[in-house]
């Protein structure tokens, strides 16, 4: 082989990047059970598959980038757990009347669990001040895709509600980051 130092440098760099890519499995494996939970009740296979693929791609990318991005992955999964699980806790045929309209409980639980997710993401982001706004953005991104898999049970409206709830939940953390 006998490489020049310059070529050795480049090969070492490539090996390092490939090694990091192999190492991403350590962070992206939770995507599999998350997709399984998402697919458990819902029939929209295309939505589950595309959200799952996006979540896997995001986890792989963030893990490969490392540092703050890498640390945001598990925080994102943790923040995304409420919208993933809560809407599925009520039976599919449970309804309530609000403002003269009939609502499915799971539909109402999506914005609520999104709000919890946003608040959890905010708490996790502000716990370590040094991580900055991109940590918050990365956590929010992972949490929202994780939550999408859960709120897909309530359709597009449920997902939109979850995202709106999440955005509201993030406001205090965002404001705090801006002030600091």
């Amino acid at each position: 082989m006998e490489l020049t130092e310059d070529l050795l440098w480049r090969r070492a760099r490539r090996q390092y990047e490939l090694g990091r890519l192999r190492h991403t499995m350590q962070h992206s494996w939770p995507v599999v059970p998350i997709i399984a939970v998402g697919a458990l009740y819902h029939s929209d296979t295309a939505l589950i598959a595309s959200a799952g693929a996006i979540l896997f791609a995001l986890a792989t990318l963030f893990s490969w980038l490392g540092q703050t991005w890498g640390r945001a992955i598990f925080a994102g999964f943790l923040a995304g757990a409420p919208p993933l699980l809560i809407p599925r806790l009520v039976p599919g045929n449970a309804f309530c009347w609000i403002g003269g309209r009939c609502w499915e409980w799971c539909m109402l639980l999506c914005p609520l669990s999104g709000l919890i997710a946003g608040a959890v993401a905010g708490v996790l982001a502000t716990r370590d001040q040094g991580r900055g706004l991109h940590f918050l953005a990365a956590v929010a991104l992972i949490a929202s895709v994780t939550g999408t898999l859960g709120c897909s049970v309530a359709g597009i409206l449920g997902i939109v509600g979850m995202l709106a709830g999440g955005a509201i939940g993030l406001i205090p953390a965002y404001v705090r980051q801006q002030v600091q």
Partner: protein
Amino acid sequence: MNSAARAELHRQMARLADGDRSAFPSVFRALWPVLRGFVLRQLPSSDSEDVAQEALLKVFARAAEFDADRDALTWALGIAAFEVRTARKRATRRREDLGQELPVAVSQSAEQEIISRNLEAAALEVLGTLRPSDIETLHCMASGRSPSVSGATFRKRIERALRRLKLAWRAKHGAD
């Protein structure tokens, strides 16, 4: 490598493992001469450059797995020792005795040097078969560094590592 350079290498390696690409040049510059020198002492010069390069590439390929609780230099040398062992095995399989490059007529002092070098190489080869934690314990003991565990635990670890080393030596060379 002095202790300050070693500590700096450890710090940079931990950053690289975390994904900080800016630590790559300093790790490369610190590690390459050390690994090259280490392999050169174990193998004939015709093979050492290839094996050293292979070892360096392996170190970088596994950099993301590096545990910052362990010493970076010991970890890298463990990988290099494994590469040396693999190269020796490969050579044995090809019935190429890597030790055949010795000069035919050697003086008494040169002969002594060769014997001690072979002994050192044999010891390192056996050392390479041990677990990384054992290698680290023995390295810690040999260098006189203070261990990260309590004295009693460290003594117990040394005892176990030496026992495993003895067993490995006996399995390889058939004598104590």
